[in-house]
């Protein structure tokens, strides 16, 4: 059984076992040197990662059914050093690695360096406790293996870019004689605190998709097409959403200002403040985590496991 921490009823256990048998068959694990027991162990690890201990069996079945079993087995077989698995992986993904890197970096030598670096991590050139560790061991089959590779490469590229930017900035500061330059801050302009509070109230109440669209468009300055592609909708849909959101936000902020004791006219005049102040306020509310440093402390500390 994949999970050690619960004992399902016999009927459910049989159904689960049948599902896992079918998944193992589809994954062709046997051809790649992965035993059924090892396969069950991998599934159990994935279940523990994404589900709570008291998850319903229906949820477990749904999770297992959604996994890319064949790609999962391929990745884990590669991580275990199976030669045939590596042959398949290289045939399918080696060129794609360079293509993806080329698209990300837009420059051939940097792309090659990035792809080679990722490939080394996938192959497992680092060791832990005497055992080779491969980044492929962290692939869990939630999405396609190719999609996971893209995300891993983007993460690595972004981390490198940010590290380099910090180094370049330090060099520039040293040359200019301001080794410990104070970060530039926007000029402080007095804004009615009720406007800021009203804005906060309205933005907090937005559903996640709306906040995502606003943050991507106004903070990250992504194009409508980029946002649409991320969300899997048409560009015109995002265009209409941004328009609708902006109008709705204004009405809601006006209403919130009214609840704070402002008359309609006062509220409208208050919203005519310098837009830079509202932008600062909205930015601080929408962007609670800056993207200036490494991707996350968690990732900087443990980059080898792909998480």
């Amino acid at each position: 059984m994949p999970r050690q921490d619960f004992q399902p009823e016999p009927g459910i256990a049989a159904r689960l076992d049948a599902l896992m048998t079918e998944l193992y068959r589809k994954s062709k694990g046997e051809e790649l040197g992965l035993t059924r027991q090892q396969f069950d162990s991998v599934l159990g690890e994935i279940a523990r990662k994404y589900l709570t201990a008291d998850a319903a069996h229906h949820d477990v079945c749904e999770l297992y059914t959604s996994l890319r079993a064949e790609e999962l087995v391929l990745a884990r077989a590669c991580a275990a050093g199976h030669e045939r698995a590596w042959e398949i992986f290289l045939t399918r993904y080696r060129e794609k690695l360079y293509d993806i890197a080329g698209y990300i970096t837009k420059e051939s030598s940097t792309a090659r360096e990035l792809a080679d670096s990722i490939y080394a991590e996938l192959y497992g050139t680092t060791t832990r406790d005497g055992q080779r560790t491969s980044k492929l061991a962290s692939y869990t089959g939630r999405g396609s293996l190719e999609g996971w590779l893209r995300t891993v490469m983007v993460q690595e590229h972004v981390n490198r870019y940010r590290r380099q930017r910090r180094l370049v900035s330090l060099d520039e500061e040293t040359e200019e004689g301001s080794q410990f330059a104070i970060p530039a801050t926007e000029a402080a302009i007095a804004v009615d605190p009720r406007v800021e509070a009203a804005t906060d109230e309205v933005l907090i109440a937005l559903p996640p998709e709306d906040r995502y669209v606003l943050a991507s468009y106004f903070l990250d300055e992504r194009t409508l097409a980029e946002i649409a592609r991320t969300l899997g909708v048409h560009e015109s849909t995002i265009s209409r959403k941004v328009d609708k959101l902006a109008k709705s936000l204004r009405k809601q902020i006006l209403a919130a200002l009214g609840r704070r004791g402002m008359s309609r006219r006062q509220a409208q005049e208050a919203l005519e403040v310098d837009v830079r102040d509202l932008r600062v306020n909205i930015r601080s509310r929408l962007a609670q985590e800056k993207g200036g440093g490494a991707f996350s402390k968690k990732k900087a500390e443990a980059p080898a496991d792909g998480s």
Partner: protein
Amino acid sequence: MATVEDHPDANLLGAFVEKSLAQVEQFRVLEHLSRCASCREIVSLTATQPGIASAVSVAPARAGWLSWPVLRWGAAVACVVVVGTVVTLRQQHESLQIEPTISVQKPEPEKQISAPSSPQSKNAEDMTTAAANPTVTRQTARAMKPAGNNNAAASPVEMADAGVGSRLAEVPGRAKAAESQDALSMKAPGNTAQVETSGAVVVPLVSTNLPPRWTLSSDGTLQRSRDSGRSWQTIQVADNTIFRALAANRLEIWVGGASGALFHSSDAGQHWTQVRPVANGEALADDIIGVEFADTLHGKVTTSVQEIWITADAGQTWQKQ
């Protein structure tokens, strides 16, 4: 259980882009993305790569009654009739007018010098144009704001005013123009036409037979005309960049300038991408004085030191002669 209070790992982010997650998980990841600029950057870079596997169709979200084939084709036929009538009337009208002599459709390596309007009236003209022209870029909208707000990214509240120069004044227009343009290009050729949209807003369209005209002003700014050269609008491509070379072929625009600055738009200037040519590990850094593109893929850039850089894949890779 891995919560998205921590940053989602590559598995979750990749699956999010591919829409492979269960609805609840998709929602949780989206909630994290709405607060985390770092993860948004990762997701955006991943999602916008070519060939990304996505289970979600990019068809417009509103299917509604248009999902009925009969009504859909009926609407299409009605569009054809309307557009055809307008085009015919317009052609009859235009046949009495003098043919414009200036054309920028052919790619030309040399700078084209135009005569922009005077500085005093330019801003007012630009503001009016921005309100009427839904395809001005975000940077152009910022540049068109009144003095004192030039470095501000517009806030949602400001955009709700939908005033002149507002970015969101451009958004519905851009969407509607895109929708209407699709209908126009699908159905009938012709000159500039007007089609009434579902929101009862009449939006001027650009005909597929008369793409915008482009030129570079004497101070190196890119300008576009949508009315056969009668009026010109400055298109903000990049800050503090002087352009000296231009190549335009329908929707494909390339501009090159000082210090190797090279920008490309494939949608008539709505969006721009900076292209950094590199060959054999060497980046193009000299002033660009000539840009020629025979088609979408094949192009040539000439620099001030008489170097010629060639691409055969729309700027993805370059060779230096």
